């Protein structure tokens, strides 16, 4: 059972790291703010969520799993909110200009 969980956890964490790397790559290569935000908000949240799920598979105890889930929820929430705020601020700047 534990080996199955280990394999599952490692696979999910690897996939999550891939998502984060893609986010970093997108941030580096994409041309403007909105397309960067578009890539970052999604890939970041997915990557962190996958890493959280993977780490949860490999830990024991409800307390550790709960704090991992808390991290994932906070990252998802703040990523979405700040993405929206940054996009809104840039639109307002454009309107003013």
């Amino acid at each position: 059972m534990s080996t199955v969980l280990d394999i599952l956890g490692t696979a999910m964490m690897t996939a999550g790291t891939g998502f984060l790397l893609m986010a970093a790559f997108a941030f580096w290569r994409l041309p403007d703010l909105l397309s960067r935000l578009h890539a970052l908000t999604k890939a970041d949240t997915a990557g962190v969520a996958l890493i959280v799920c993977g780490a949860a598979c490999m830990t024991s105890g409800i307390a550790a799993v709960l704090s991992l889930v808390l991290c994932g929820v906070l990252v998802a929430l703040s990523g979405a909110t700040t993405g929206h705020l940054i996009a809104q601020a840039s639109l307002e700047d454009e309107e003013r200009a």
Partner: protein
Amino acid sequence: MTQLFDALLAVGIVGVAVAALFANDRFAAVGAFMVMGFLVALSWVRLGAPDVALAEAAIGAGLTGALLLRSARRLRVEPKMCQSRWSVAASGLISIGFAGLLYAAITSVPTVPAYPPLVAERLGESGVSNPVTAVLLNFRAWDTLLEIAVLFVALVLVIVVPVSRVRPAPLGEMVVPFAKVVVPLSVLISGHLLWQGADAPGGAFQAGAVLAGGGLALVLAGAMRLKKPLQGGILRATALSGLAVFGAAAVATAALTGHLLGYPDGQAKIWILGIEAVLTLAIAATLVLLFHGSVRRVPK
């Protein structure tokens, strides 16, 4: 594998520091500084000092970053980023020299410091089982009292000097649902850090910084209006109560046991928890007020 991680971390810290120093735009520089704070926090974890890591992440990176971003917004004029090469070279040389002196000082200490065994020996008397809290709130509580006095002085300066306020209006409706989730969580995590400080990494400073994060979310969502005399007054009274209560506790212990901040036998934990609970609220209120700025009118 961990050595590779440590090496990457060290290179990353220096790299982000360079990025912060040479960024062309002020917001990018502050962003790089905040990333550096989080990497430094990670390195404190690797060095086995989770208490320092928590404080660095919450105060050093998070709240200092918020204060810097706020100030960067206020200073409209971009600074002259290209200083003369001589001043850059001179400050670089001074920094390298200082780092060398520090290295020489650290390596010239002949024996291991005497404090850890002393603390370990007397930990039972302190009332708590986390050695960091034992030092901060019992063995060297006097130092912590003075640290709170420093925060007090900073806050008094901010209250006395009327700087312009934060205006949260343009943030829009997305912040309110965000605050609805983050504020209760910050209260919960802050209470957890405060309580666990007795036997695990945590304590008043970390708990206060987390609570202040929730407070900033309230201010930015427009829910906490410090311009209103009641709300502003409560927050200021809470902020200033930290030093008052800590000082009163010092006087009370002096009257009870004859030693300043020498707690009565067997009651140390109650005293420590009481002081830390007040300090948590006071530190949180102080940090929110430092961010918000003075609530007095700017004279025209």
